[in-house]
């Protein structure tokens, strides 16, 4: 091996290296200070952002847990001023309305999302834009729309409520499905095409299964959003003191109970409202965490 020694002090590269490393070393303490300040600001804003969130959760849990007992879950609501009663009728209503809305909107949203993901035409752009607008529309408009379009014709019912809730859920599901389907690598589509498969066959057998974690997560989050909505139900399901299993009749729902009872002057009703708020919060939490666990589980299964 050749050994080549030379005067290090005159080598231009070495000279510049020494200069640059000197500047880098000198600036590192300044950069570290900036980094600490920036990190401090991040933490401070995080705490500020968390205060209202934690306060809401803690307050609801503390107030709501007092209402939770067997009567609360097993008895229907009582009229204002009458002590006792529970939320059984509202829970039944929420589950049925949520289920109907989900059964209708998931297939529609999936097909719509598939269309949006597979098409880049003008119609798709218009649909996408409309869907984005609809996610931003105040939910009370959905309630009024349901009232004018359906209640005026068919009367108050759980189905009309499910329709209004579905209007909220549909664009969310559609966009979630589109994102999930777009996330599937294009070469899978090409692999299918090269085997002589039709586009819909590829979508059904390859693309949608691959996008399933995202689709399910989006779907569950949309349900969580839907069951928590109050305004669309205000004008559509009317509310009832009976435990109504038939969605073609007037129904009650948890958000409606919270809305009505929280403005009541009677402590019993206020108690019920807190309990219902906690129940709704837990339901949404379970759906959100469940969607994440499901997605993580599905992802893991594929490795």
């Amino acid at each position, binding site marked *: 091996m050749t050994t*080549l020694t030379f005067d290090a002090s005159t080598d231009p590269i*070495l000279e*510049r290296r020494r200069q*640059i*490393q000197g500047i*880098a070393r000198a600036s*590192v303490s300044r*950069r570290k200070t900036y980094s600490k300040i920036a990190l401090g600001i991040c933490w401070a804003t995080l705490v500020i952002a968390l205060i209202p969130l934690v306060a809401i959760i803690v307050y609801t849990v503390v107030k709501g847990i007092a209402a939770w007992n067997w009567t609360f879950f097993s008895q229907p609501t009582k009229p204002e001023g009458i002590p006792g009663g529970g939320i059984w009728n509202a829970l039944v209503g929420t589950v049925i309305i949520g289920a109907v809305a989900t059964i209708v909107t998931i297939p529609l949203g999936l097909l719509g999302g598939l269309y949006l993901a597979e098409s880049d035409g003008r119609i798709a752009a218009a649909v996408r834009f409309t869907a984005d607008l609809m996610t931003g529309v105040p939910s009370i408009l959905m309630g009024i729309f349901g009232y004018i379009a359906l209640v005026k014709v068919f009367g108050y019912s759980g189905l009309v409520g499910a329709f209004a809730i579905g209007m909220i859920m549909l664009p969310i599901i559609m966009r979630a499905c589109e994102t999930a389907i777009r996330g599937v690598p294009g070469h899978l589509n090409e692999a299918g095409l090269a085997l002589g498969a039709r586009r819909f066959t590829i979508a059904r057998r390859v693309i949608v299964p691959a996008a399933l974690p995202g689709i399910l997560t989006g779907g569950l989050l949309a349900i969580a959003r839907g069951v928590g909505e109050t305004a669309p139900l205000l004008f559509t399901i009317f509310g009832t003191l009976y435990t109504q299993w038939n969605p073609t009749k007037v129904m009650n729902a948890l958000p409606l109970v919270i809305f009505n009872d929280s403005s009541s002057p009677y402590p019993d009703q206020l108690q019920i409202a807190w309990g219902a708020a906690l129940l709704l919060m837990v339901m949404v939490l379970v759906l959100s965490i469940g969607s994440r666990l499901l997605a993580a589980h599905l992802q893991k299964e594929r490795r």
Partner: protein
Amino acid sequence: MTTDSFTPADIEDDVNLSTGEVFPDRSVGHPVMQLKDVAVSFAGRTAVRNVSFDVRDRQITALIGPSGSGKTTLLRALNRMHDTVRTAKVTGQVLLGDTDVYAPSTDPTLLRSRVGMVFQRPNPFPTMSIYENTVAGLRFNGVRKKSLLDEAAESSLVAAALWDSVKDRQKAHASTLSGGEQQRLCIARALAVEPEVLLMDEPTSALDPIATKRIEELIGELKNRVTIIIVTHNMQQAMRVSDQCAFLLMGEDKAGELIEFDATAKLFSEPDDARTLDYVNGRFG
């Protein structure tokens, strides 16, 4: 496993007589980086282990081996790129000169200004011009002096064989360059910080044969300036460009291991290990 290592007697420091400052020895072949039983694991699963060898100054060291043998994982351990992966754990010792790379007192950002990296795909910063890309590392490290920036930009663009084609359009966006030119810009960007060691992770795998040839020629020319460690899946490339060669292979438990380290000429003609012979003769991998 063969490991060539230098005895302390080989290490002679140059002393600047006017300042008394000690500069590390700059004789070619002096070990600038030493790996001692390096292992990398992710979430408890070992990805590569048992790696010990010396990287010699202004020589080119190639890491070869089939997919999954841990070449890239090992390379990224040398400038602490695994720091960003929470589950990653590096054990053993990596020395850069006198600096223990994984010592708690070692600042990873300062370390990376001394150990540069070029990636598989050209990744120039999309919003920056050619000039801004070249001096980006200097700016990140606090260099503000225009004369130093300009000097480093020209020097590194010349070294990356890009100066002649871009000197009149340094304000143009980096995206206006071809793939090969973009990769040479990334090499210039890494060189501008004047690192002591340059890590190259399959730098030609995304390039066409002509661009590959130019980069390979370039790597040979850069030898005088910087010590290079290159990962390549292409044995011919390792043979063409490298002085020393490390052969890694995936063990039975899926963890990569160093099988042999030797001068490239010897490793490719008469390796000590039968598995190396099989691999360099294309019998597997």
